[in-house]
Protein backbone atom coordinates (compact mmCIF):
# COMPACT_ATOMS: atom_id res chain seq x y z
CA UNK A 1 0.00 0.00 0.00
CA UNK A 2 1.37 3.38 -0.97
CA UNK A 3 1.96 5.96 1.71
CA UNK A 4 -0.83 8.19 0.35
CA UNK A 5 -3.30 5.33 0.00
CA UNK A 6 -2.70 4.39 3.63
CA UNK A 7 -4.15 7.74 4.67
CA UNK A 8 -7.46 6.81 3.08
CA UNK A 9 -7.75 3.68 5.20
CA UNK A 10 -9.64 5.38 8.08
CA UNK A 11 -12.07 6.89 5.59
CA UNK A 12 -12.71 3.53 3.94
CA UNK A 13 -13.28 1.83 7.27
CA UNK A 14 -15.65 4.57 8.29
CA UNK A 15 -17.59 4.21 5.03
CA UNK A 16 -18.05 0.48 5.73
CA UNK A 17 -19.19 1.30 9.24
CA UNK A 18 -21.67 3.91 8.00
CA UNK A 19 -23.15 1.44 5.50
CA UNK A 20 -23.59 -1.16 8.23
CA UNK A 21 -25.23 1.39 10.51
CA UNK A 22 -27.53 2.47 7.71
CA UNK A 23 -28.55 -1.14 7.13
CA UNK A 24 -29.03 -1.43 10.86
CA UNK A 25 -31.62 1.34 10.89
CA UNK A 26 -33.89 -0.82 8.75
CA UNK A 27 -33.54 -3.87 11.00
CA UNK A 28 -35.41 -4.61 14.16
CA UNK A 29 -32.99 -5.87 16.80
CA UNK A 30 -35.82 -7.20 18.95
CA UNK A 31 -37.22 -9.38 16.16
CA UNK A 32 -36.21 -12.95 16.71
CA UNK A 33 -36.75 -15.84 14.34
CA UNK A 34 -37.66 -19.11 16.03
CA UNK A 35 -34.86 -21.60 16.52
CA UNK A 36 -37.28 -24.26 15.24
CA UNK A 37 -37.73 -22.87 11.72
CA UNK A 38 -37.76 -25.74 9.20
CA UNK A 39 -37.76 -28.30 11.97
CA UNK A 40 -40.67 -30.50 13.04
CA UNK A 41 -42.61 -29.69 16.17
CA UNK A 42 -40.99 -31.13 19.27
CA UNK A 43 -42.71 -34.33 20.45
CA UNK A 44 -45.14 -33.91 23.32
CA UNK A 45 -48.18 -35.50 24.90
CA UNK A 46 -50.47 -33.16 26.78
CA UNK A 47 -54.16 -33.15 27.70
CA UNK A 48 -56.68 -31.33 25.55
CA UNK A 49 -58.42 -28.37 27.14
CA UNK A 50 -61.88 -29.43 28.33
CA UNK A 51 -61.59 -33.01 27.06
CA UNK A 52 -60.19 -36.15 28.58
CA UNK A 53 -57.90 -37.00 25.66
CA UNK A 54 -54.17 -36.68 25.19
CA UNK A 55 -52.87 -34.72 22.21
CA UNK A 56 -49.55 -35.16 20.44
CA UNK A 57 -47.68 -33.41 17.63
CA UNK A 58 -49.23 -35.93 15.20
CA UNK A 59 -52.66 -34.41 15.71
CA UNK A 60 -51.64 -31.27 13.84
CA UNK A 61 -50.35 -33.01 10.72
CA UNK A 62 -52.33 -33.13 7.47
CA UNK A 63 -52.74 -29.58 6.31
CA UNK A 64 -50.93 -26.26 6.77
CA UNK A 65 -52.16 -24.61 9.95
CA UNK A 66 -51.60 -21.91 12.50
CA UNK A 67 -50.56 -22.78 16.02
CA UNK A 68 -51.44 -19.97 18.40
CA UNK A 69 -49.99 -19.60 21.89
CA UNK A 70 -52.40 -17.78 24.18
CA UNK A 71 -53.49 -17.33 27.79
CA UNK A 72 -56.19 -15.54 29.72
CA UNK A 73 -53.58 -13.50 31.61
CA UNK A 74 -52.24 -12.10 28.35
CA UNK A 75 -53.71 -8.71 27.52
CA UNK A 76 -52.71 -8.70 23.87
CA UNK A 77 -54.36 -12.12 23.36
CA UNK A 78 -57.72 -10.49 24.02
CA UNK A 79 -56.90 -7.93 21.34
CA UNK A 80 -55.96 -10.68 18.91
CA UNK A 81 -58.89 -12.99 19.61
CA UNK A 82 -61.58 -11.45 17.31
CA UNK A 83 -59.24 -11.59 14.34
CA UNK A 84 -58.43 -15.25 14.95
CA UNK A 85 -62.16 -15.94 14.89
CA UNK A 86 -62.41 -14.24 11.50
CA UNK A 87 -59.57 -16.37 10.17
CA UNK A 88 -61.22 -19.52 11.54
CA UNK A 89 -64.46 -18.57 9.79
CA UNK A 90 -62.51 -18.32 6.52
CA UNK A 91 -61.56 -21.95 7.07
CA UNK A 92 -57.96 -21.50 8.19
CA UNK A 93 -57.15 -24.31 10.63
CA UNK A 94 -55.97 -22.87 13.94
CA UNK A 95 -54.72 -24.93 16.87
CA UNK A 96 -54.25 -23.42 20.27
CA UNK A 97 -51.74 -23.83 23.03
CA UNK A 98 -53.23 -22.57 26.27
CA UNK A 99 -49.96 -21.51 27.85
CA UNK A 100 -49.37 -21.52 31.62
CA UNK A 101 -53.02 -20.96 32.34
CA UNK A 102 -55.89 -22.18 34.45
CA UNK A 103 -58.17 -24.65 32.59
CA UNK A 104 -61.39 -23.26 34.02
CA UNK A 105 -60.49 -19.66 33.21
CA UNK A 106 -59.49 -20.65 29.69
CA UNK A 107 -62.74 -22.60 29.16
CA UNK A 108 -64.70 -19.61 30.44
CA UNK A 109 -62.86 -17.30 28.01
CA UNK A 110 -63.71 -19.57 25.06
CA UNK A 111 -67.35 -19.87 26.09
CA UNK A 112 -67.64 -16.13 26.44
CA UNK A 113 -65.61 -14.85 23.50
CA UNK A 114 -66.01 -17.72 21.05
CA UNK A 115 -63.66 -20.49 20.04
CA UNK A 116 -61.56 -20.15 16.87
CA UNK A 117 -59.47 -23.23 17.69
CA UNK A 118 -59.78 -26.76 16.28
CA UNK A 119 -58.55 -27.89 19.67
CA UNK A 120 -56.50 -26.49 22.52
CA UNK A 121 -53.49 -28.10 24.14
CA UNK A 122 -53.50 -27.44 27.86
CA UNK A 123 -49.83 -26.57 28.51
CA UNK A 124 -50.34 -25.80 32.20
CA UNK A 125 -46.66 -25.91 33.20
CA UNK A 126 -45.40 -24.31 30.02
CA UNK A 127 -43.29 -27.36 29.11
CA UNK A 128 -44.38 -27.39 25.47
CA UNK A 129 -43.94 -23.63 25.35
CA UNK A 130 -40.38 -24.10 26.56
CA UNK A 131 -39.61 -26.72 23.91
CA UNK A 132 -41.03 -24.42 21.26
CA UNK A 133 -38.93 -21.52 22.49
CA UNK A 134 -41.96 -19.43 23.40
CA UNK A 135 -40.95 -16.33 25.31
CA UNK A 136 -44.28 -14.61 25.79
CA UNK A 137 -47.85 -14.76 24.58
CA UNK A 138 -49.23 -14.30 22.01
CA UNK A 139 -47.04 -16.11 19.52
CA UNK A 140 -48.24 -17.74 16.33
CA UNK A 141 -46.46 -20.54 14.48
CA UNK A 142 -47.14 -21.43 10.87
CA UNK A 143 -46.94 -25.19 10.32
CA UNK A 144 -46.83 -26.99 7.01
CA UNK A 145 -48.79 -30.15 6.20
CA UNK A 146 -46.03 -32.33 7.71
CA UNK A 147 -46.06 -30.43 10.97
CA UNK A 148 -42.81 -28.61 10.28
CA UNK A 149 -42.47 -25.07 11.68
CA UNK A 150 -42.12 -22.60 8.81
CA UNK A 151 -42.55 -19.26 10.47
CA UNK A 152 -43.13 -17.67 13.83
CA UNK A 153 -44.80 -14.38 14.54
CA UNK A 154 -44.33 -12.80 17.97
CA UNK A 155 -47.13 -10.49 19.07
CA UNK A 156 -50.65 -9.87 17.88
CA UNK A 157 -51.80 -11.32 14.54
CA UNK A 158 -53.98 -8.68 12.93
CA UNK A 159 -55.19 -7.87 9.44
CA UNK A 160 -51.85 -6.35 8.46
CA UNK A 161 -49.70 -9.17 9.77
CA UNK A 162 -51.92 -11.77 8.13
CA UNK A 163 -52.09 -10.03 4.76
CA UNK A 164 -48.43 -9.07 4.48
CA UNK A 165 -46.64 -11.93 6.20
CA UNK A 166 -48.64 -15.00 7.11
CA UNK A 167 -51.13 -15.33 4.25
CA UNK A 168 -48.58 -15.41 1.40
CA UNK A 169 -46.61 -18.11 3.25
CA UNK A 170 -49.77 -20.01 4.09
CA UNK A 171 -51.01 -20.00 0.48
CA UNK A 172 -47.62 -21.20 -0.69
CA UNK A 173 -47.67 -24.11 1.76
CA UNK A 174 -51.26 -24.90 0.83
CA UNK A 175 -50.64 -25.10 -2.93
CA UNK A 176 -47.61 -27.25 -2.23
CA UNK A 177 -49.55 -29.67 -0.04
CA UNK A 178 -52.53 -29.78 -2.45
CA UNK A 179 -50.40 -30.35 -5.54
CA UNK A 180 -49.34 -34.00 -5.25
Amino acid sequence: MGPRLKLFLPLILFALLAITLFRGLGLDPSEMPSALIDRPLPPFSLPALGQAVALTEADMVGQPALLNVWATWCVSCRVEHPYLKQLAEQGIPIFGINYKDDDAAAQHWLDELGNPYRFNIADREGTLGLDLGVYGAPETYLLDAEGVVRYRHVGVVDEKVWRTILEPLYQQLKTRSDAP
Partner: protein
Amino acid sequence: MRLLRLLLVITLALVAGPALALIETYEFSKPELEARYQQLSEELRCPKCQNQNIADSNAPIAQDLRRLLHQQLEQGASDAEIRNYMVARYGEFVRYRPRFGGATAILWLAPVLLLIAGIAVLLLTLRSRSTRTTVSGAAGLSAQEQERLRSLLERAEQDA
Protein backbone atom coordinates in the same frame (compact mmCIF):
# COMPACT_ATOMS: atom_id res chain seq x y z
CA MET B 1 -56.43 0.04 14.65
CA ARG B 2 -54.96 2.96 16.52
CA LEU B 3 -56.39 1.77 19.81
CA LEU B 4 -54.91 -1.62 19.15
CA ARG B 5 -51.48 -0.19 18.58
CA LEU B 6 -51.78 1.88 21.72
CA LEU B 7 -52.67 -1.20 23.72
CA LEU B 8 -49.67 -2.98 22.29
CA VAL B 9 -47.38 -0.14 23.23
CA ILE B 10 -48.69 -0.17 26.77
CA THR B 11 -48.35 -3.91 27.25
CA LEU B 12 -44.89 -3.99 25.76
CA ALA B 13 -43.83 -1.03 27.86
CA LEU B 14 -44.96 -2.87 30.96
CA VAL B 15 -42.91 -5.96 30.29
CA ALA B 16 -39.93 -4.39 28.59
CA GLY B 17 -39.25 -1.48 30.94
CA PRO B 18 -36.21 -1.65 33.18
CA ALA B 19 -37.45 -4.39 35.43
CA LEU B 20 -35.84 -5.30 38.68
CA ALA B 21 -34.36 -8.59 39.57
CA LEU B 22 -36.74 -10.76 41.43
CA ILE B 23 -34.90 -12.37 44.29
CA GLU B 24 -35.47 -16.10 44.34
CA THR B 25 -34.45 -18.48 47.02
CA TYR B 26 -33.40 -21.66 45.30
CA GLU B 27 -31.80 -24.23 47.53
CA PHE B 28 -28.87 -26.13 46.11
CA SER B 29 -27.77 -29.57 47.15
CA LYS B 30 -24.11 -28.62 46.64
CA PRO B 31 -22.42 -25.20 46.90
CA GLU B 32 -20.67 -25.73 43.52
CA LEU B 33 -24.08 -25.85 41.92
CA GLU B 34 -24.92 -22.43 43.28
CA ALA B 35 -21.72 -21.00 41.84
CA ARG B 36 -22.47 -22.59 38.45
CA TYR B 37 -26.04 -21.34 38.67
CA GLN B 38 -24.79 -17.79 39.19
CA GLN B 39 -22.31 -18.06 36.34
CA LEU B 40 -24.71 -19.61 33.83
CA SER B 41 -27.59 -17.30 34.69
CA GLU B 42 -25.30 -14.37 33.97
CA GLU B 43 -24.15 -15.88 30.71
CA LEU B 44 -27.58 -16.61 29.26
CA ARG B 45 -29.52 -13.81 27.69
CA CYS B 46 -33.18 -13.31 28.43
CA PRO B 47 -34.83 -13.75 25.01
CA LYS B 48 -37.51 -11.19 25.62
CA CYS B 49 -35.68 -8.37 27.38
CA GLN B 50 -33.64 -5.38 26.36
CA ASN B 51 -30.17 -6.80 26.68
CA GLN B 52 -30.35 -8.41 30.10
CA ASN B 53 -29.16 -11.75 31.32
CA ILE B 54 -31.64 -14.10 32.93
CA ALA B 55 -30.16 -13.44 36.37
CA ASP B 56 -30.98 -9.75 36.29
CA SER B 57 -34.32 -9.82 34.55
CA ASN B 58 -37.73 -9.88 36.08
CA ALA B 59 -39.54 -10.99 32.91
CA PRO B 60 -41.66 -14.15 33.28
CA ILE B 61 -39.57 -15.98 30.70
CA ALA B 62 -36.40 -15.21 32.67
CA GLN B 63 -38.03 -16.65 35.80
CA ASP B 64 -38.97 -19.80 33.88
CA LEU B 65 -35.47 -20.16 32.54
CA ARG B 66 -33.94 -19.69 35.98
CA ARG B 67 -36.21 -22.41 37.35
CA LEU B 68 -35.24 -24.64 34.46
CA LEU B 69 -31.57 -23.91 35.02
CA HIS B 70 -31.92 -24.82 38.68
CA GLN B 71 -33.70 -28.08 37.79
CA GLN B 72 -31.14 -29.06 35.20
CA LEU B 73 -28.23 -28.31 37.50
CA GLU B 74 -29.80 -30.42 40.23
CA GLN B 75 -30.30 -33.22 37.70
CA GLY B 76 -26.58 -33.15 37.00
CA ALA B 77 -26.52 -31.58 33.52
CA SER B 78 -23.17 -30.20 32.38
CA ASP B 79 -22.68 -26.55 31.42
CA ALA B 80 -22.41 -27.49 27.76
CA GLU B 81 -25.60 -29.54 27.89
CA ILE B 82 -27.49 -26.66 29.45
CA ARG B 83 -26.17 -24.16 26.89
CA ASN B 84 -27.06 -26.47 24.01
CA TYR B 85 -30.51 -27.06 25.46
CA MET B 86 -31.17 -23.31 25.55
CA VAL B 87 -29.71 -22.70 22.09
CA ALA B 88 -31.87 -25.46 20.59
CA ARG B 89 -34.95 -23.62 21.79
CA TYR B 90 -34.07 -19.94 21.66
CA GLY B 91 -31.26 -19.80 19.12
CA GLU B 92 -27.65 -18.58 19.35
CA PHE B 93 -29.08 -15.31 20.57
CA VAL B 94 -29.27 -16.57 24.17
CA ARG B 95 -25.52 -17.00 24.48
CA TYR B 96 -23.70 -13.93 25.77
CA ARG B 97 -20.55 -15.95 25.20
CA PRO B 98 -20.83 -16.55 21.45
CA ARG B 99 -19.57 -19.95 20.35
CA PHE B 100 -16.39 -20.11 18.31
CA GLY B 101 -17.16 -21.08 14.75
CA GLY B 102 -18.66 -19.80 11.53
CA ALA B 103 -19.44 -16.11 11.57
CA THR B 104 -18.42 -15.75 15.20
CA ALA B 105 -14.90 -17.06 14.56
CA ILE B 106 -14.01 -13.62 13.23
CA LEU B 107 -15.34 -12.08 16.44
CA TRP B 108 -12.99 -14.14 18.59
CA LEU B 109 -10.05 -13.76 16.23
CA ALA B 110 -10.46 -10.01 15.69
CA PRO B 111 -8.68 -8.87 18.87
CA VAL B 112 -5.75 -11.19 18.20
CA LEU B 113 -5.46 -10.07 14.57
CA LEU B 114 -5.74 -6.42 15.58
CA LEU B 115 -3.06 -6.85 18.18
CA ILE B 116 -0.75 -8.57 15.71
CA ALA B 117 -1.34 -5.78 13.20
CA GLY B 118 -0.72 -3.20 15.92
CA ILE B 119 2.54 -4.82 16.97
CA ALA B 120 3.66 -5.06 13.34
CA VAL B 121 3.02 -1.34 12.82
CA LEU B 122 4.80 -0.61 16.10
CA LEU B 123 7.88 -2.56 15.06
CA LEU B 124 7.97 -1.03 11.59
CA THR B 125 7.66 2.47 13.03
CA LEU B 126 10.38 1.82 15.58
CA ARG B 127 12.67 0.45 12.89
CA SER B 128 12.22 3.36 10.52
CA ARG B 129 12.47 5.96 13.27
CA SER B 130 15.58 4.51 14.84
CA THR B 131 17.53 4.17 11.58
CA ARG B 132 16.89 7.80 10.82
CA THR B 133 18.63 8.78 14.07
CA THR B 134 22.06 8.36 12.58
CA VAL B 135 21.15 10.15 9.35
CA SER B 136 19.31 13.28 10.31
CA GLY B 137 19.01 13.22 14.07
CA ALA B 138 21.14 14.79 16.68
CA ALA B 139 24.18 13.29 14.95
CA GLY B 140 24.01 16.17 12.48
CA LEU B 141 24.88 18.65 15.22
CA SER B 142 28.28 19.69 16.28
CA ALA B 143 29.53 18.53 19.65
CA GLN B 144 28.88 21.96 21.14
CA GLU B 145 25.35 22.08 19.77
CA GLN B 146 24.67 18.59 21.06
CA GLU B 147 25.79 19.61 24.49
CA ARG B 148 23.51 22.64 24.44
CA LEU B 149 20.60 20.56 23.12
CA ARG B 150 21.01 18.03 25.89
CA SER B 151 21.02 20.68 28.59
CA LEU B 152 17.93 22.34 27.09
CA LEU B 153 16.10 19.04 26.86
CA GLU B 154 16.97 18.18 30.40
CA ARG B 155 15.61 21.46 31.61
CA ALA B 156 12.51 20.93 29.56
CA GLU B 157 12.05 17.54 31.10
CA GLN B 158 12.36 18.89 34.59
CA ASP B 159 9.55 21.20 33.65
CA ALA B 160 7.33 18.33 32.63
